[in-house]
Structure formats: structure tokens, C-alpha cells
């Protein structure tokens, strides 16, 4: 099999992994080496689905002894199989990197033979890159659940980022859909990696040349929509992972049905992209806006609203804490205003030192007022000419896409108001939309 065929099969098998970031570490090539990385990350291209291509994302092999129902590479699936030799993949990476196609390598693998054998082959690939070719670009390596700790440790010394995919957000779904994996087998390497990262950063404080274990941290991924967990449970779990394992990122991947299986959504189900989008919005709120999962969702409201983003929903449910006076509100309070992001909040805090802000000044420093004007006061005044009309307000809360979704469903019935409190009986809605419609009220 030639390299072109292998690349086709093994990138096709790897593409459902969401993570393609090259962020978290700054470094440059030493003399005689090749490769650098920037902490902000760098996108080299965007695929026709709009996803960033930053790393060469491939499997070392798609041969796998496991039989996870949601996975294209499970052993019971009749598909083409291929494997790179470590040398082939290292050469390909260097040639792509040299032409500036990629920022580095994202290496994962099916479990061929045993977890240890698989892990050793991955280590060999990275060893060739790092030691023989003196490659200092970005490498994201996937820890193989069940591999020996010594091997995970070696992998972490060669890679910039490590990840262990949780895939399914509950032990019950894991038992049902991934019979060969257990919660413990996934969390054990995650805990070990966290411990090594902590040790390494401790050593680096004391010894400048101490070896650096996974300097860009670790991440994980969950599949959304393959199993019945509500958003609430997924968000709680993400928050727990950030706290307990110090993860850099939790990625969400809308489940794309790959084969018919009575335990999984039907093959023609579209991937739940809206739900994935909402989870990412909430993920940002957890990481940068000081929200907790409990504030965004609870048992009574287990799912995100289809038309209104998580921050708006929160603000609507906490209407009593608004409006806020722009010139006096704390930075943390400003961050919670719908329509104000980290940049706008910083600008407000900075600009109001020079003079008390007016509505005009707020617009001029680049704060988008479409939503924020409903939640703010400037020098004690409301936004001039603000109509307290529920429909106008509602439309202002939605993005154009959300308005489109809302209108296309509204045309099916005489009137749909989010404010009438009645749960509407709709048939033509997307499944996810039906489930969480009455959430904010």
C-alpha cells in the first residue's frame, strides 16, 4: 500500500477527534533543529466544514482490538485497515512541516496488539522526530488507556500536549457502548499525567533545565449525542475535570452516526451541532467568565435553550441583578452582562478611568450594544429610545441564525412566545430543540 492510500485511510479514521489546537506553549528551534510553537496557537488551514487544520491529525494505525460502538475503527466494523511505520510518519510530518502546511503532529492510534505495543510504536515515532530530526514543533499525543505508566511517562516527555478521551459522559453509557473500557482505565492515566505535569512544573522552578512533561498540558474529549446524558450532566462533568485534573481544555464532538446500531442514534440523524455550540459557549463561561456549572444549568433546567445562548438564559433568570451601572459595576459583574466579553469589559474598566462613560462613548470604544443595552445604565440613564417590547427584546437576544431557527418554527403555528409559559407542542422541531424549549421560563 502506498503512502497516499495510507494517509487517506488513517486521516479519515482520525477526523472525528475534535481537538486540533496547537496552543499552550511558546518555543523556538535551537541551532540545527526545526520547529517552533506559539502559545496562542496557529491555524494553517480550514477544512470545508470550517474546522481549523493546525496539526497533521492521523492514526498510527486504525487496526483496533476494541469494539466501541460509536467508533469507526472498532474491530467489528468492516473497513479498510492500514498502518504507518514510525519512520514513514515521521518523514511525512517533517516534509509537511517544512512546507508550512502544519504546526505539528496530532498522533493517536487504534489499539493494535496490546495497549503497550501500540504505545511503544507511538513513542518510536516521536523519538525519531524529536531525537533524530531534532523537531521542536508541536506534538499532541493521545495516551492509550491501559498502557503501562512508564510508557505514558516516556510519551509525555516527548509530546507537548497529552490527552485521554473520556468519550462518553457516564459510566453507564461507557459500559453499554464501550464494553472494553472502564471509567477507571480512562481516569487513571489522566490522574497520572496530571501528577507528572505538577511534578515537572515544581522541578522547573528549582532547576531550569529540568525535563518538561507535556508543557502544553492535557485535554480530553466527549462525544455529544451518542448517549442520553443531558447538557447539565456533561457540563458538571467538564467542570469537575477542570478542577480535579487541571485540564487545559474539554472538547465536545457532535456525534456523527457511522453505522446502524440499536444502541445509537439512527444513521441519518444530523450531528447535534447546535448542542455542541451551546456546550462550547458554556465551556467558555466556565473558563473565562467566572461562571459555575450550577449557575448555568440545574436539575430543573437540564438542557441549554435552543434560541438563547447560555449567558443570556442566565441573565434572564437573574433579571433582578440588572440593570448595572456601567461606571460603577465591578469587572466580574460586567463579564456577566450578555453582549460584553472579556475584551469589552477590559476596555470599559480602562476607559472609565479617564471619564464617566456615556452611551455614545460605550459604542465608540467598541462595545456591542445589541444585547448589552437592555442590561446596562450609563450615568444612571437607560439606553435612549429603548423600547420595552418583548418581541424586540427577544430578537435582540438571538443571533441571526437563532432568529432564523425561531422564525422557521414559528411559521408552523400561529404564535410562539417564549413568555407565555406554555410548553408549545411542535412536531417539526429538531430533536434537541424540542427537548429544551421551555427552559428559561
Amino acid at each position, binding site marked *: 500500500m502506498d*503512502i*497516499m492510500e495510507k*494517509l*487517506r485511510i488513517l*486521516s*479519515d479514521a482520525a*477526523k*472525528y477527534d475534535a481537538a486540533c489546537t496547537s496552543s499552550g506553549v511558546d518555543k*523556538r*528551534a*535551537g*541551532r*540545527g*533543529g*526545526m*520547529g*517552533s510553537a*506559539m502559545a496562542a496557537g*496557529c*491555524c*494553517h*488551514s*480550514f*477544512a*470545508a*466544514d*470550517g*474546522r*481549523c*487544520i*493546525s496539526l*497533521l*491529525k492521523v492514526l498510527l494505525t486504525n487496526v483496533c482490538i476494541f469494539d466501541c460502538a460509536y467508533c469507526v475503527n472498532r474491530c467489528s466494523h468492516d473497513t479498510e485497515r492500514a498502518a504507518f511505520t514510525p519512520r514513514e510518519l515521521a518523514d*511525512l510530518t517533517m*516534509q*509537511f512541516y*517544512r*512546507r*508550512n*502546511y502544519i*504546526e505539528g503532529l496530532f498522533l493517536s492510534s487504534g489499539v493494535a496488539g496490546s495497549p503497550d505495543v501500540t504505545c511503544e510504536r507511538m513513542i518510536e515515532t516521536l523519538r525519531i522526530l524529536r531525537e533524530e530530526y531534532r523537531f521542536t*514543533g508541536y506534538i499532541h499525543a493521545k495516551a492509550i488507556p491501559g498502557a503501562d505508566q512508564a510508557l505514558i511517562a516516556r510519551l509525555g516527555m516527548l509530546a507537548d500536549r497529552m490527552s485521554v478521551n473520556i468519550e462518553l459522559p457516564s459510566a453507564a453509557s461507557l459500559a453499554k457502548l464501550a464494553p472494553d473500557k472502564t471509567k477507571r482505565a480512562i481516569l487513571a492515566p489522566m490522574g497520572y499525567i496530571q501528577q507528572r505535569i505538577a511534578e515537572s512544573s515544581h522541578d522547573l522552578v528549582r532547576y531550569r533545565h529540568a525535563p518538561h512533561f507535556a508543557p502544553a498540558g492535557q485535554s480530553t474529549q466527549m462525544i455529544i449525542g451518542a448517549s442520553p446524558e443531558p447538557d447539565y450532566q456533561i457540563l458538571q462533568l467538564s467542570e469537575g475535570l477542570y478542577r480535579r485534573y487541571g485540564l487545559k481544555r474539554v472538547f465536545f464532538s*457532535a456525534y*456523527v452516526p457511522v453505522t446502524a446500531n440499536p444502541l445509537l442514534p439512527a444513521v441519518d440523524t*444530523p*450531528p447535534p*451541532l447546535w448542542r455542541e455550540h451551546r456546550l462550547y459557549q458554556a465551556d467558555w463561561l466556565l473558563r473565562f467568565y467566572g461562571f459555575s456549572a450550577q449557575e448555568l444549568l440545574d436539575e430543573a433546567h437540564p438542557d441549554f435553550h435552543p434560541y438563547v445562548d447560555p449567558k443570556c438564559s442566565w441573565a434572564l433568570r437573574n433579571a433582578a441583578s440588572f440593570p448595572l451601572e456601567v461606571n460603577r459595576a465591578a469587572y466580574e459583574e460586567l463579564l456577566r452582562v450578555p453582549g460584553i466579553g472579556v475584551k469589552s469589559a477590559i476596555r470599559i474598566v*480602562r*476607559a472609565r*478611568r*479617564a*471619564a464617566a*462613560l456615556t452611551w*455614545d*462613548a460605550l*459604542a*465608540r*470604544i467598541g462595545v456591542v450594544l445589541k444585547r448589552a443595552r437592555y442590561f446596562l445604565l450609563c450615568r444612571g440613564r437607560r439606553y435612549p429610545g429603548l423600547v420595552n417590547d418583548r418581541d424586540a427584546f427577544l430578537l435582540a437576544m438571538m443571533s441571526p441564525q437563532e432568529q432564523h431557527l425561531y422564525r422557521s418554527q414559528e411559521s408552523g403555528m400561529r404564535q410562539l412566545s417564549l413568555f407565555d409559559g406554555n410548553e408549545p407542542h411542535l412536531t417539526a422541531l429538531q430533536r434537541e430543540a424540542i427537548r429544551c424549549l421551555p427552559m428559561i421560563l
Partner: protein
Amino acid sequence: MSAHDLVTYRYDGSWEGLLCCVFESYTAHELPEAILGPEAPETSLFGSKTIVTDAGHAARVEVSLPQKLGHEAAELVRLTFFTCLPEKELWMLRFLRLGYQYGPQLLQFAGNDTVYRLQKAVQHLLSEAHLLKGFIRFSVQNNVLVTTIGPKNCVLPFLAGHFKARFPEEHWLIYDAAHHMALAYRPYETAILPLESFSAAPPDAEEAKFRALWCQFYDTIEIRSRHNERCRMTLMPKRYWKYMTEFTRDFAVPDANPQLTVT
């Protein structure tokens, strides 16, 4: 100084030349209605005043920038010189006049048109440079990495450090077709040279193979059921596609029996 001096400056297009325009504006107590580079056509009925670049004058202005405006504002003005802001010279002069009057606090002038324009222009410059760090596609030609770009802003100086850190042992050349300049590197020195035209030779067999492999990867990595043309275009505007391997699909080797031309 009257606000409506019907005078036009013509300078040599260099940073020092522009500083001399600033010097002239202050010593002659006038605010020009236009500052023209050497190639700009004559527009004023009254002709233009040619500003001769004087190293001494330029140095005096240069030294005053961080002192009077603070480092952040001085940096902003310095970077604006590389942007594609229309009439950038005039906006820079206005900014400097504001700066000399108010000092470093001028950056906080919420909504001042001049400050805003400079900040926007510099943001555009730096974001374009950042995008190109990813979107540049090198071809390997006689073991030299070569590429062409067509940016709106003059980004070459902002790419040098990045690619130097990345490929310290390679020889490479980035040709800016829009500004007719090239950034060239050989271990361990960089240079920016004027270059009227440049085109890479057709690919040899090895180069064509990796281009084809890259296109294969690019096509395969898309998840068809998530196809989203608009999202791709927002994140990677079409004007960059012209020079990118995955869109040009140029991997035909011209000679059936490929031989490296040795010159």
C-alpha cells in the same frame, strides 16, 4: 497655525522622510492637506512642497516620540507606517500632533477618530501577519523554501522573527507580490530586498508528491455532514486561497521524465 493651509507635502516614502514632514509641519506652523509619497500623482493646483529627508531632523523627532507619547503610542505610530490605511501619513501626523499636546493619555481617548483609525489599522496589520504565519505554503526548490503572498499590509517585517525561529537551518524566501519586496533568509541572517517580480519554478516530482499528499489530507479531514462553506470563508478569506496549495492544486510535473535543472 491655520487649520486650512493649502499646502501639500511630498516626501521620499521612508520613515525618516515622514518624521521630517512632522518636523516641517511644526517649524512652518502649518497642517498640510495631503502628504504624498514619491509615486503619488500630483493633485493640488498649487503644487507641492518637497520635504528633503534630513537625518538630523528625523532623529530629533524620533527621540521625542517615546518621551512625549509614551512607548505604547510611539509603537502604535511606528506600526501604522506598515499598514494599508488610506492617507496613513496624514493620520499619523494628526495622531502625533494630538500626542505632543496630550501625552500618553491620548490612547485612552475613547472614540477619538484619529486614535481609533490608527488602532484599527494596526490591528488589521497584525492580524493579517498572524494569519499568514499559518497560510503561507512553501515550495521546495533546489533545497530553498520559496513562496509568494499578496497581503494588503506590509507584513514581511512581522513574519521574519516567526520563520527564523521555525526554520533556522533552512534557506527561504517570501515574496510579497503586492508590495514588490522579498524577505530572504540564510543561516543566520535575514534581509528585506526590493524585488520586481518572482515566480517559483514548476514543481519537481518530490515537491509534486507532497503537494498531492497535502491535498489528499485536506480533502479527507472534512466531515461531510458538517460541511460549512461560510464558516470556512469567514475564518480563511478567499483572497488568501490564491497562493495556497490546497486550492491551486498545482502538482503536475511539467516534464514526463523529471530532471532537476541545474543552473
